[in-house]
């Protein structure tokens, strides 16, 4: 379309657009609030594990903000403490799965002989339902923070590998990559200079989504009794304990559930904002 006339297009300021995105505003503020509360909140709140049998199953108001559980522990302070676990798992899973997936994806996209092998293994991994895989792994190797993270990372890897591989396969056909080949640039440099930068934007977006879904999966595992050891107050564990008394004291499930949903929602909003600003085209290939 544009010829000589359209030469000087001004650069849009991606950061400003990103920050003025309504979803990002909401998500960023919510997440900041949650991080702040779970970070410094426990200092002010009462001990999350101190038992008070006289004060059992009190509704919100009568026993602290969020009421108390069946052992008389303060749900509010438990929720504040549980947030840390959730955020840790989310960040760790996002980081690990992106790092591993990026490496495998680059290899699959660029080395033809390994492509088929890696992708068949990824197909296999993808066809095992993530929750089943995770609960089986945790049930068998014992519930620790590490096993939970590993069990959530493994099913996330194939999605990252596929994403990276598809970017590599598209970009390596670009004339500017061919020009670099023609200029005698070595394969490693072509990857680093011309291909890797194209994976950054979609990967950042994908990492946010993975962070959100990892937080969810962690809670689900805890809820099913296959997560982080039950004595640690994670959101999933708190809700798992609330199951038995649900009809009596629904708040034990609702408050941590609400906190979790808000946190994941915030992360997803930020992901959408990133997606819209970094590259609208990749929006379609994801989710």
């Amino acid at each position, binding site marked *: 379309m544009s010829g000589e006339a359209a030469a000087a297009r001004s650069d849009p300021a991606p950061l400003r657009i990103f920050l003025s995105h309504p*979803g990002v505003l909401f998500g960023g503020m919510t997440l900041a609030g949650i991080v702040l509360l779970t970070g410094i909140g426990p200092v002010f709140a009462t001990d999350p594990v101190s038992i008070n049998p006289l004060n059992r199953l009190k509704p919100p108001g009568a026993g602290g903000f969020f009421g108390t559980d069946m052992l008389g522990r303060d749900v509010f302070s438990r929720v504040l403490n549980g947030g840390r676990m959730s955020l840790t798992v989310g960040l760790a899973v996002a980081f690990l799965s992106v790092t591993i997936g990026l490496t495998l994806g680059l290899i699959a996209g660029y080395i033809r002989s390994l492509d088929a092998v890696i992708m*068949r*293994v990824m*197909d*296999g*991994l*993808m*066809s*095992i*339902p*993530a*929750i*089943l*895989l995770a*609960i*089986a*792994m945790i*049930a*068998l*190797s*014992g519930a620790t923070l590490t096993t939970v993270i590993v069990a959530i990372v493994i099913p996330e890897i194939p999605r990252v590998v596929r994403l990276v591989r598809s970017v590599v396969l598209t970009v390596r056909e670009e004339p500017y990559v061919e020009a670099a080949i023609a200029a005698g640039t070595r394969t490693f440099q072509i990857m680093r200079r011309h291909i890797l930068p194209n994976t950054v934007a979609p990967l950042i977006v994908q990492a946010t989504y993975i962070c*959100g*879904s990892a937080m*969810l999966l962690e*809670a*689900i595992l805890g*809820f*099913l*009794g*296959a997560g982080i050891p039950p004595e640690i107050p994670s959101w999933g564990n708190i*809700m798992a304990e609330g199951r038995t008394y*649900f*009809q009596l004291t*629904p708040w034990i*499930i*609702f408050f941590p*559930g*609400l906190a*979790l*949903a808000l946190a*994941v*929602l915030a*992360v*997803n*909003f930020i992901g*959408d904002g990133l997606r819209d600003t970094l590259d609208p085209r990749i*929006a*379609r290939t994801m*989710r």
Partner: protein
Amino acid sequence: MLNYIAVRILSTVPVMGIVALFVFILLRLAPGDPAAVIAGDYATAEDVERIRQQLGLTDPLLIQFFRWLGDILQGDLGTSIFSNKPVTVLIAQRLEPTLLLALTTIIFSILVAVPLGTIAAYRSGSAIDRLAMLFSVGGFSIPVFVLGYILIYVFSMQLKLLPVQGYKSPFTEGIGPFLSHIALPTLTLSVIFIALISRMTRASVTEVLEEDYIRTARAKGQSELRILLRHALRNAAVPIVTVIGIGIALLIGGVVVTESVFNIPGLGRLVLDAVLARDYPIIQGLILFFSFVYIFVNLIIDLCYTLLDPRIKY
């Protein structure tokens, strides 16, 4: 065409093999001795050894794997350690509720999500689009079981419209009880599925609406509704159907949680019970079963592409 179908079916074999290998490795290499777990806390060394013999755990790993693979090929997924029943029989017993829940969810989700996503794409940027996408992000953000409990709280405990938990078979106890019991689980499970499908529908239809042939249809004087139905949706179908296939994995995971919340005696509950009891053959058999279902559904979807798009040739 037939040639392609054969090739495509054959190509699932390595994937299934990888799944089998992975499941096998997972269970064998996990720290902890299955035999000791099965024997329990008060077992003697002889008990453990006996169980180990019984499970064939004393043989080399490779032999164990191929023996197991051979059994699977003959339709034998092993025998439950505790109930001593074949895993296939256990699966068959629990299949009905899970299958029906999955079906009602898929049907309900598609009926809601495809129109929602299409309208959102057509009226891109409008209030209805924003609302639909907000719902979609929300669906991805709320944990399935929390949603389940909220629904129970509202519809069963407060409004007392629907039963709290349980399952009634439509074949033995009638359609009415079945529907009233399956309604909330279906709704619970559908939310994330609707979020997934409506998002993809919106993206796919948005893309198609930019295409030249939509402009051609307008140039012919075609009405907007017919353009959407006849031209846009038809062309947007492949990615939508694909995401439904991929979503089966999500659905299976959701089934486990939902069955647990609503106390439905299906495969999901079987998994959980097996995990808590460390009943290895059941865990192994069920993961394999679910994975094969996923592979099979996606194989069928793949073969349907020709019907949706004549450009995809075999």
